[in-house]
């Protein structure tokens, strides 16, 4: 029953979030601010994780493909497919759920408990729209770029580490990452990213917005935001994969 309560309240909140903004210029300013807050600040962690994961995937697959029947370029091919289909769109989004989700929930949660949200409402501002819409739009806009970067750095990391450790040759790797490329798979990946971006930003905002109590509860909201965003990412990952790949 708790589930239906949350679902109902979530959809009511989302409806308020997407009602007409009071003043467009203020919203645009907020969106720019959030792009910086959500996107740019996540760059370092994404870069490091993607580079090293790409490298490790490459070394692992080179290590696994010992049979003479498997061509050597399979290493590059595997690195590309893993990064493009699953690692960057899903795993990196899970990591971002932790970083962005807790950030959003604690920011909105502390605004709730210090009556800043009430102050907005009193001024006649739709606080849900003002606080949450810019975060959702910024997330949905910037996350595909972050993930594209992650894909690139992952494949690049595979190249650098593959060559450095002697796991594969430059020619084979580069041949492999171009082999059997099917562009529609990118469509699948980026549909996932946009969905996950919406889930992370909206769910975390929801938990922040309905925080009650004090600092302790802000911490709890922030944890709930990360947990539920992650679970929903996994569920939607499964659903979208079923939809696209079968």
């Amino acid at each position, binding site marked *: 029953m708790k589930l239906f309560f949350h679902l109902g309240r979530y959809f009511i909140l989302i409806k308020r979030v997407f009602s007409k903004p009071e003043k467009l210029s203020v919203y645009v300013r907020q969106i720019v601010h959030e792009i910086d807050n959500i996107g740019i600040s996540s760059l370092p962690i994404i870069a490091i994780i993607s580079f090293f994961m790409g490298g490790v995937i490459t070394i692992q697959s080179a290590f696994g493909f010992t049979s003479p029947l498997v061509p050597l370029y399979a290493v590059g091919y595997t690195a590309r497919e893993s990064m493009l289909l699953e690692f960057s769109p899903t795993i990196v989004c899970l990591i971002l759920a932790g970083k962005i989700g807790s950030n959003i929930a604690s920011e909105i949660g502390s605004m709730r408990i210090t*009556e800043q949200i*009430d102050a907005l409402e009193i*001024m*006649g501002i739709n606080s849900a729209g003002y606080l949450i819409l810019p975060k959702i739009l910024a997330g949905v806009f910037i996350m595909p770029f972050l993930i594209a970067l992650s894909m690139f750095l992952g494949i690049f990391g595979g190249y650098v580490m593959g060559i450095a450790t002697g796991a594969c040759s430059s020619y084979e790797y580069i041949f492999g990452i171009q082999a059997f490329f099917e562009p529609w798979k990118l469509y699948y990946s980026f549909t996932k990213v946009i969905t996950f971006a919406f889930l992370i930003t909206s769910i975390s905002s929801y938990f922040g917005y309905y925080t009650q109590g004090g600092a302790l509860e802000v911490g709890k909201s922030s944890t709930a935001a990360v947990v539920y965003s992650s679970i929903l990412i996994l569920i939607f990952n499964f659903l979208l994969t079923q939809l696209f790949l079968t």
Partner: protein
Amino acid sequence: MIEIKNISKSFGDRKVIDDVSFTFEQGKTNLIIGESGSGKTTIMKLMVGLHEIDCGEILYDGQNFPTLGVKEKQEVRKKIGMLFQGGALFDSQTLEENVRFPLDMFTDMTKEEKLDRVNFCLDKVQLTNRNNLYPGELSGGMKKRAALARAIANNPQYLFCDEPNSGLDPKTSIVIDNLIQSLTKEFNITTVVITHDMNSVVEIGEKILYIYKGKPWWTGNSQDILKTTNPELVDFVFASGFMKEVFNAVNKK
């Protein structure tokens, strides 16, 4: 003018506000006084719609606020300025941005006009040239004053202040009290102030509602209150020995 008629409110099964009626008059500083926990803040939040009333009416110049639609409520709220007990300044914005916020949202003023207005308001609360500080860098009293500057920025028609001078030194308290009163007179605002500072009560209490355990216990003005015989109110007013001495001294004359 704001009239509240027979409003009640329960949280769970605890009745926090019990059948309160009062008229807050335009151009006057109307006070709500009472012990802490008696329901003062709750009444104010009911009036501005942050809590929903269980029953009763809240009339803003005749318009019954709780029954208005979302859009109409927003229109009324644009005319409200509110100072929260804790200030409720936006942490991520500087003082200037905080005070400018209602102007950004609801006016078409130019940059220069807004800056003038912001500086005027900050000046009024004695925070001149503190434009670029963040709320985290302010003392409690400064936060209160900055919040008051924000509340008055967009020339409100109704001004609500929840304990505007708790946490302030006596001198600044008087400045804030006088500021609230002069704004009220100058712009003919309907002002509602919650306080338990007896000094303010005597200074600016043109119309007073005393709340005792959620019930409207006594109404009057700052002259009446010193002559009251209502036992709970006497307790409240003369809780400090100082007030008692002042009272005796006045009566002896």
